């Protein structure tokens, strides 16, 4: 069984054989994956190298904690003799969408629609956990679609503004 696993944006092709060996980068490896608590915690041995992983599956993604770092893995299995219906890559529209990274209270809005901004310039201040968090523009451009005002409560993922 062949897979392409995308880990943190990097594609890693590998093959899992019937006998449990895994081929990776053209080399075969002895692999053992053991559940520890019947839930999230796993021990993985690859050719005797030991890895401890906490794994959570969320919406088809594997979130994997390893050595204190969180990695996101998506698994694709390969079809044989079939041209895959590859969707065209999302064209960069040049538009940056500013979303609320967490629920919170809009403390103040630092820009207006139509205003030119520099990369990294503050756009909105959001209060959460008693701290002001400044949301900054990821690029240079012009603000549009600004849809919040001071005092608004916003949900996580809510679109606050765009920069084009």
């Amino acid at each position, binding site marked *: *069984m062949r897979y392409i*696993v995308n880990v943190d944006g990097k*594609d890693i092709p590998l093959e*899992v054989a019937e006998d449990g060996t895994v081929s990776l980068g053209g080399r075969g490896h002895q692999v053992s994956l053991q559940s520890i608590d019947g839930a999230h915690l796993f021990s*993985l041995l690859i050719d005797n190298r030991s890895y401890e992983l906490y794994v959570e599956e969320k919406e088809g993604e594997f979130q994997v904690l390893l050595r204190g*770092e969180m990695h996101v893995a998506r698994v694709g299995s390969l079809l044989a003799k079939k041209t*895959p219906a590859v969707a065209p890559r999302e064209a960069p529209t040049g538009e940056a969408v500013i979303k609320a990274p967490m629920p919170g209270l809009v403390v103040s809005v630092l820009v207006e629609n139509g205003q030119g901004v520099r990369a990294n310039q503050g756009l909105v201040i959001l209060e*959460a956990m008693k701290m002001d968090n400044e949301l900054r523009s990821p690029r240079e451009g012009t603000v549009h679609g600004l849809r919040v005002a001071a005092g608004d409560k916003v949900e996580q993922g809510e679109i606050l503004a765009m920069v084009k």
Partner: protein
Amino acid sequence: MFKKVLVANRGEIAVRVLRACRELGLATVAVYSDIDRGCLHVRYADEAYPIGPAPAPDSYLRMDRIVDVAKRAKADAIHPGYGFLAENAAFARACQEAGIVFVGPDPGAIQMAGDKIAARRTMQAAGLPVVPGTDRALLDEEVAPEAERIGYSLLIKAAAGGGGKGMRIACRPEELPSALSAARREAQAAFGDSTVYIERVVTGARHIEFQIMADQHGNVIHLGERECSIQRRHQKLIEEAPSVALTPELREAMGQAAVRAARAIGYSSLGTVEFLLDRSKNFYFLEMNTRLQVEHPVTELVSGIDLVKEQLRIASGRRLRYRQEDIKLKGWAIECRITAEAPYNDFLPSIGKITGLYEPTGPGVRVDSGIYEGFEVSLYYDPLIAKVAAWGESRGEAILRMRRALNEYQVVGVKTNIPFHQMVLNNLRFIRGAFDTSFLEAMDLVKASREDDLSAVAVAAALLASQRRPAMKLPAASGEQLSPWRRAGRWRVVPR
């Protein structure tokens, strides 16, 4: 000694205080907001009482309800922890009036030290050097002229401040207005008081603080310093005891100044005197904190003294059990504050449920934690979820132990700043001890994943996917077809 102590706090510090009470054989009372029903402090205490909805002003800041619970539960003392009502003179007074001992200094000392402007004046009178700045509250229109007089860069600080809140830096005149309004707003939100003053930024300075212990009989000693220069946005993140910057002579001089500061306001209880130490080893009084500090464990580890138990003994009227010459500091201790913040995403708060947790232990490692599997990190409270402290015979051993401990620490469900701490502890300037309060500003956090870690993640994910969704198993592709897929780029474009 008391019979029953109410702990007017939550999270790791409530558990810390409850542990001290239990070791002293005291009965304990917890209070909790609606969303904290299942929290560690509720389960750890002998009794627990609800005091209102999640927002702190409706629960943990409700003095009336807390005093009422103390009366109903017949508690004879209230320990405020840090934050919330810990430095609220009105609360200390309300306790007094209800005939309940407030575990802290008397209201007058809290008020004096809490007004940072008054404290500056008092300490100057007591002969302590202070940073150039204003010695009175400033109206909006006075800020700019005073700023010109003092000179940039400068700090706008809340007079009622503490814990790094209500503080903003302005490096140029044009930054002044927004810094001023931000500081006032945060100060109003955090302390209900938007009064601010200005202090010159001392470039290249370290933040050094001294732990004070004073009883109600006029005895005052210090327990040495803590090095708190590793800060982000004026929030301490890593603290040590002792500091590499201090010689025995300087420690002696600063310690005596700290004791003088405590005496100047007739202080009793635990307290902390904060100093700036500039590159020429001149020190300046910064402020005095009239509470137990977040970072008290590093002092406990090098002194062997349980500060919270001593604080309770002092509050019950006992004399200090130590003279200055009894204080023998041994080895080195480091603390990392673990916060639910996303280090690779500008430290935005990370909320959610803790679904997996493994805390480090073993030789030389101590954890003070407020979390558990099932705990919900919410937006209502401070993102500090736990503290790890490591002790070593030397600074090097303490750093290596801390790295080992952070390596073991696993928190699943929310993002934490653990990778950030690991990076700091691996930084050569940090290891050499060559840093000041600007250290973190200059540092970039880069997610440096090892190649074989990514492979391991890929292998685990593939094996789990193959086990969990056998229906997804499709015939293997031939080798030739592998490459187009890879060129196709990110996984999300692959149809499932």
